[in-house]
């Protein structure tokens, strides 16, 4: 027609815009459906999986360190001494701290996964907005969801008693040094005098 032909094109543009909007809504609906399984229980299970993996290792490391401690004490004839009790308690404290550390690591893994899932969901929503078809968005969402749902590689827990072992070994070495120095004729007097005078100067 000569007059008024633009109306059809504008109507088509409006219809297209509304169809795209519906497509975006549909795509987001499919993404939400695919990610519906990522609830607090899912993330808690992730943390529990890490603990299930780490706890036997903690027990093993604890047992090893305890054995080393007891052998060392037995060698020096200190197995039934107060020192033995104190050292065992420090090991117990270290083990409990390690348990707490594992708990924190489990929590951190839960949070990391939650953030990754959130980011992935966000990426897919952005794709839906950018005009990807609902089908491709839904496929992407399902792929991502299955990726996150699958068991992942758990991080190594490392040596949980390294600090305790380091302190224990240092103490052992110091004791050994003291024993050796104790055999020298002038050791105790010289060391004691120097340290004593220094303390007095600082105190004054």
């Amino acid at each position, binding site marked *: 027609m*000569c007059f*008024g032909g633009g109306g059809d094109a504008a109507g088509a*543009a409006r219809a297209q815009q509304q169809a795209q909007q519906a497509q975006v809504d549909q795509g*987001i609906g499919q993404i939400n459906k695919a990610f519906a399984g990522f609830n607090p229980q899912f993330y808690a299970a992730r943390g529990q999986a890490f*603990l299930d993996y780490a706890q036997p290792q903690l027990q093993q490391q604890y047992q090893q360190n305890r054995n080393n401690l007891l052998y060392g004490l037995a060698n020096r004839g200190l197995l039934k001494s107060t020192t033995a009790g104190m050292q065992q308690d420090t090991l117990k404290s270290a083990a409990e701290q390690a348990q707490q550390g594992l708990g924190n690591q*489990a*929590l951190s893994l839960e949070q990391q996964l939650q953030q990754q899932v959130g980011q992935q969901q966000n990426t897919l*929503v952005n794709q839906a*907005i950018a005009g990807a078809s609902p089908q491709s968005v839904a496929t992407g969402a399902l792929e991502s969801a299955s990726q996150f749902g699958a068991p992942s590689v758990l991080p190594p827990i490392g040596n949980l008693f390294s600090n305790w072992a380091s302190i224990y070994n240092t103490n052992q070495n110091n004791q050994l040094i003291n024993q050796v120095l104790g055999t020298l004729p002038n050791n105790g007097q010289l060391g004691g005098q120097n340290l004593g005078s220094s303390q007095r100067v600082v105190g004054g």
Partner: protein
Amino acid sequence: MCTGLEVAGLVTALAGTGLSISGAQTASNNMNNALKTELLRQQGYAKQGQSVFQQSLQQSTPQATKAGLDQGTQQAQQVQAQARAVPLSLSSTVGVPSNYTNDSTQQARTGLSDQANAKNQSYNAFAVQQALRNLLTNQQLGVIGSQAQASGGVLPYELQAAQQSGAGQQGFGSILQSLGGLLGTFGATRPGNFLSNRAMGSLQIGGGL
């Protein structure tokens, strides 16, 4: 004196002018309507956006923050309890005394440490939850914003269409105006009418003398 043709020309030209004005008015009305409709749509999107923003804002109030921290503490305590679920096989089975601390002191110390740790962890948990909520809010605002932008993008086409909606009437009015003009000119200049007009002019001149 006006002849029939001159009158018809005048009427036709007037009708054409009327149609042109009506066409222009239709176009103007339609443009206004298109703009009003789009403004209403944009207001709807703005309302949606405001609602999403307000919800997000409500999650950042001191009360909501406290609730979020409490929730984070609970979550951390739950995980700590899971971590403590497998007991350490500590016992003095080989006769090693434990004089330094007894079990109840150790348990109390561990309990306090776990409690403090859970509180400390709650800040991190809250920050993560807040980041995820912000992500979701930005996502929702992004969807609304893109829809608003897409809707606004159609407006120029709709305005153009509205502008052309009166073109038919205006065109027809122009044709009628031209036709009326032609009829009027033809009526005024046709031979019979031209002579009689001249005669009347002579009479008037003679009368004047």
